[in-house]
């Protein structure tokens, strides 16, 4: 759950910087142009905002551009964090992408469509229940659902390969409902 907390932290950063900008009306931040962190965040989650620079106040346009740039960078960061989520889970005998998978899959799609030279393998899996060959086909159908999601969101078909392992490579080797839930999955592997 590390990914989630980082994501929240970034969301905080984003809103905090926007607020700070409004309050001081004169925020300058070298980081915005240097490509480093937008705003340093301390361990307690508090926010440090740099003091107004010597350059005096900015025009509305400059401010808007700066804000847009910060927002873009924050979004990029958020997407990078979301892309750390690479395993997507499914219901028993189902291959529909769950609603909670969409945000992270959108982040993967955005990255892949922006980087057409990057390829992924979508590994489809099932739990151990039911028959092995049906599960191979089910694992493939799950991976194809994810493939379709990516393609609809701008990824080229040639960037994506689908492989199903069915029930052969469980993530959890137990035989309980929670083990099975962990095994009904698609994993995105970057090549």
């Amino acid at each position, binding site marked *: 759950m590390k990914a989630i907390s980082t994501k929240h932290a970034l969301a905080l950063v984003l809103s905090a910087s926007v607020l700070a900008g409004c309050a001081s009306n004169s925020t300058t931040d070298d980081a915005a142009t240097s490509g480093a962190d937008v705003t340093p965040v301390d361990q307690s989650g508090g926010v440090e905002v740099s003091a107004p620079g010597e350059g005096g106040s900015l025009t509305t346009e400059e401010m808007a551009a700066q804000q847009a740039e910060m927002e873009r960078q924050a979004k990029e960061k958020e997407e990078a964090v979301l892309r750390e989520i690479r395993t997507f889970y499914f219901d028993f005998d189902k291959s529909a992408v769950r609603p909670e998978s969409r945000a992270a899959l959108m982040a993967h799609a955005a990255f892949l469509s922006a980087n057409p030279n990057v390829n992924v393998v979508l590994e489809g899996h099932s739990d151990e229940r039911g*028959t092995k060959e049906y599960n191979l086909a089910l694992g*493939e*159908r799950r991976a*194809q659902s994810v493939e379709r999601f990516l393609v609809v969101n701008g990824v080229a078909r040639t960037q994506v390969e689908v492989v199903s392992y069915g029930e052969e490579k469980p993530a959890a080797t137990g035989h309980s409902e929670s083990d099975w839930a962990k095994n009904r999955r698609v994993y995105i592997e970057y090549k």
Partner: protein
Amino acid sequence: MQNRSVYITVLLSIILIAPRISIAELMIEITQGADSAIPIAIVPFSNKSAKPIPEDIRKIIAEDLQRSGEFDPLATNRMLSLPASAKEVYYRDWRLLKQNYLLIGSIEYSDYSKAYKIQYQLFDVNQQKRVVGEVVSGDDKSLRDLAHHISDAIYEAVTGIRGAFSTRISYITHQSSVNGKPEYRLQVADADGRRSFTLLKTSEPILSTAWSPDGKKLAYVSFESGRPAVYTHIIATGKRQLVSAHKGLNGAPAWSPDGKSLALTLSKDGNAEIYRLELATKKLTRYTRHYSIDTEASWSPDGNQLVFTSDRSGSPQVYRMNIYDQSPERLTFKGRYNARPRFSDDGKSIFYVHQSQGAFNIATLNIDTGSELILTDTSLDESPSLAPNDRMLIYATQRGRKGVLAVVSVDGRSKYLLPAEFGDVREPAWSPFLK
């Protein structure tokens, strides 16, 4: 596409092993016997030569017949006499012990021919007459074969049905090896689990083993290249052939009854569909056309029909299709999950995996009468495979946290387990008759 090159360049940690005996054999544990089993006294075979006999022939025969669920062999310590020839048989003794049949025999080793000669005779205790008898011979290595041959003869003489004790089974074992990598083995053993040997060892999954109708080859799915592909493998020579490696799924091989084709599941045209691959010409014929999953085909004995799994109704169910008109007809209606059907050798029934109340069991359906029977009662039973005489069925189940093989009679009345010493055992397939 880059996929292709990856597919080819993935190097395989795969070792082909010439058939050899391995130490890890399956054991037998009888868990349920039929009440109606026929009492039979199998007298220890007398040794007429000085050389000790390396196999206990009586024990092999008694265990074969007991495993079938149709015989109840008498313990030797309850026998009143141990006749070795017809003139030593007193029917009264065996009637007293409530035995229906009596099997006696002797073994003789010839230094000259380096061969064993086994003579046996079966008597009907109630009718007081000899039913069958024979002299068979072979070397050290064929003693177990000779014993299974006698079991077959006794079984057929009493039940009228051909015995399947001289057949083999194949199965997959899975365990973690020393370096932590998984190790999968394709094994072949006698029907009683003995004399097992390894045909293939790889760190990637193997599944869906199918025997060719002549019993000489296996087809299976191996992930050794990193992707599923179908291979055929000659058991005696170890010679293998890659027969299907299309993009996507290559699975569920099933030999046509003439041995010339394989039914396969391929997804090269988008999703899992059933095809026929003619092995000599590589010609592919597509049999199913549906956006749902179609897989796990099994041929009818006449080669005119296929039964298979499809989820076109919304959940996996068993369908039957004539290969010439290709219009599927649904066969199973009870429950949300019925899959991986296998035709019986007489073509009248199918055996498949059925889910009820959360458990997956082996069930059978008489296609003509529509009568269904659930044969097993554990929770994760799969991969049913029938003995060629349609009397017993081997399947995979779980015991504790381990995969084990189990056998059940087709009436569900007798059962036994074939656990291995270590690792998981799965994907059993019963061979056809071998002679």
